[in-house]
């Protein structure tokens, strides 16, 4: 419990910065909604004729009315993904690698606890922080979208579905970050690996977007696990990808325990 609280405290400030960025993004994006709504008809006409690939690259789904507030909001999904993959993977790397980075391993790991207990506390703290970030996204989105919503049907439900999908991806990247933290000798190397995965999977997403018949590669890039529009309007959350994400995250976390357990902690 003490390690858990310590980790929460240590990462709280950075969570605030990330949250502020998120709220700013949603706020700024929605502020522009009214302006967009006016020119919207013409934009719709154009977008609806563009190839799905190009639209997907921009985070827009084909055949949707962009002047509708919900569809407009769904474009943010990609931005959320980018922010959250960075946040959760870096958080994962940090909680594991910080003891050696800051040379506090000689403090924490000579305490009468198993290493696995320390890891458990750290993982739980990281999951808590990730959920908190997700809640910030959900609550701020729901609140900011509301005044723009003149359709009469609440968007809170669809937004909740969307942020639930985000949470799945967050946990996945958190798991990867943790694994890299335990795998690499230094925190710099670990965050380098995490960066490579984020950029690599993002580029892969772009490639698959561009070329529709590469869909079968979707499993390789979490950026394509969920389609915002389908999630929001059809409540269609792809269960296989949820399972895949959870299994990957679970495996990565198991790997974290295993690797950290047999690791020499250098001072």
């Amino acid at each position, binding site marked *: 419990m003490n390690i858990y609280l310590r980790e929460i405290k240590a990462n709280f400030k950075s969570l605030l910065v990330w949250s502020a960025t998120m709220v700013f993004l949603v706020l700024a994006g929605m502020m522009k909604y009214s302006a967009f709504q006016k020119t919207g008809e013409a934009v719709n006409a154009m977008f609806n004729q563009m190839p799905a690939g190009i639209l997907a690259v*921009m985070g*827009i789904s084909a055949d949707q009315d962009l002047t509708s507030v919900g569809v407009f909001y769904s474009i943010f999904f990609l*931005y959320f993904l980018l922010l959250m993959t*960075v946040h959760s993977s870096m958080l994962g790397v940090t909680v594991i690698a910080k003891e050696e980075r800051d040379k506090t391993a000689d403090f924490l790991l000579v305490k009468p606890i198993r290493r696995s207990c320390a890891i458990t506390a750290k993982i739980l703290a990281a999951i808590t922080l990730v959920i908190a970030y997700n809640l910030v996204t959900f609550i701020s989105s729901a609140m900011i979208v509301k005044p723009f919503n003149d359709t009469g049907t609440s968007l809170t439900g669809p937004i909740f579905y969307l942020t639930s999908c985000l949470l799945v991806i967050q946990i996945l990247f958190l798991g990867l970050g943790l694994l890299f933290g335990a795998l690499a000798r230094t925190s710099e190397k670990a965050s380098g690996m995490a960066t490579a995965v*984020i950029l690599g999977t993002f580029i892969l997403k772009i490639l698959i977007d561009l070329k529709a018949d590469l869909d079968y590669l979707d499993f390789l890039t979490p950026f394509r696990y969920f389609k915002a529009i389908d999630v929001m309007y059809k409540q269609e959350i792809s269960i296989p990808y949820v399972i895949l994400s959870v299994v990957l995250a679970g495996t990565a976390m198991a790997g974290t325990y295993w690797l950290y357990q047999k690791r020499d902690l250098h001072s």
Partner: protein
Amino acid sequence: MMLLFEFRKSFRSWLNFTIGLLLTFTIFASFFDFFREDAALMDQLLQNFPEEFRAAFGFANVNLSEVEGYLSFIISYIVLVGAVYGMKLGVGLLSAEPREKTSDFLLSKPVRRWEIVAAKLEIALILLVAQALALFTLGLAEIKIIIKQPIDVGIFALLVFAMLLVQLFFLGIGSVVAAAASKIKSIMPVALGIVFFFFIIELVNESLHLKELTYLTPFAYFKGSSILTLRHYEWPLLAIDLTIFVVATGLSFWIYQRKDFHAV
């Protein structure tokens, strides 16, 4: 000596990122053939829209089924990877001493502080220019081998060096952040966070077409579509980019000079 030392320290990650860039470029280049059919169709569609409209969305004069058009489109992702490296350099170099607990070592040497900053920025510039040159030459070779079509070398150079210009922006911002912070424990979280923030602004700018945002994010300064149309950079945006770089590096000199270096 300082130069050589900093160079050796930074070389490994330079190599990693340069390989990463080339890999990204190679993958995109080998996608060209696949992409062409789709693109040709889209080009036809786009012709149905008024000129201004296409210009607004960055597709004026852009023929995606041609090499230049395709490259002008994918370059933004190359620039993203490059920008992460530029930011990493900026944040990493000036924050290295407090992080690695070597402040007392370096700052007790008979060198002026500005010389330290200058040496580090010089290395950063060398690495970035070398990276752009590597991407330019090897990229040209790849186009020749993979795409097998003639390409306007001038346009390609403008596209590749757009990456360098964006990197300079982030190098400047990163240096200020590093100089101002008393200690940055990890580089990548800071670097990635800031770069992605600017990239998202550009995505908002692109999908929602909000012209005001153009000035806020370097990713909007050197758009492939406008390079293709104008055959040069947009001078005001180039000026903004370079001004930010110069002001930011100037600021980092100023801050570094006045900074307290605390004991470990």
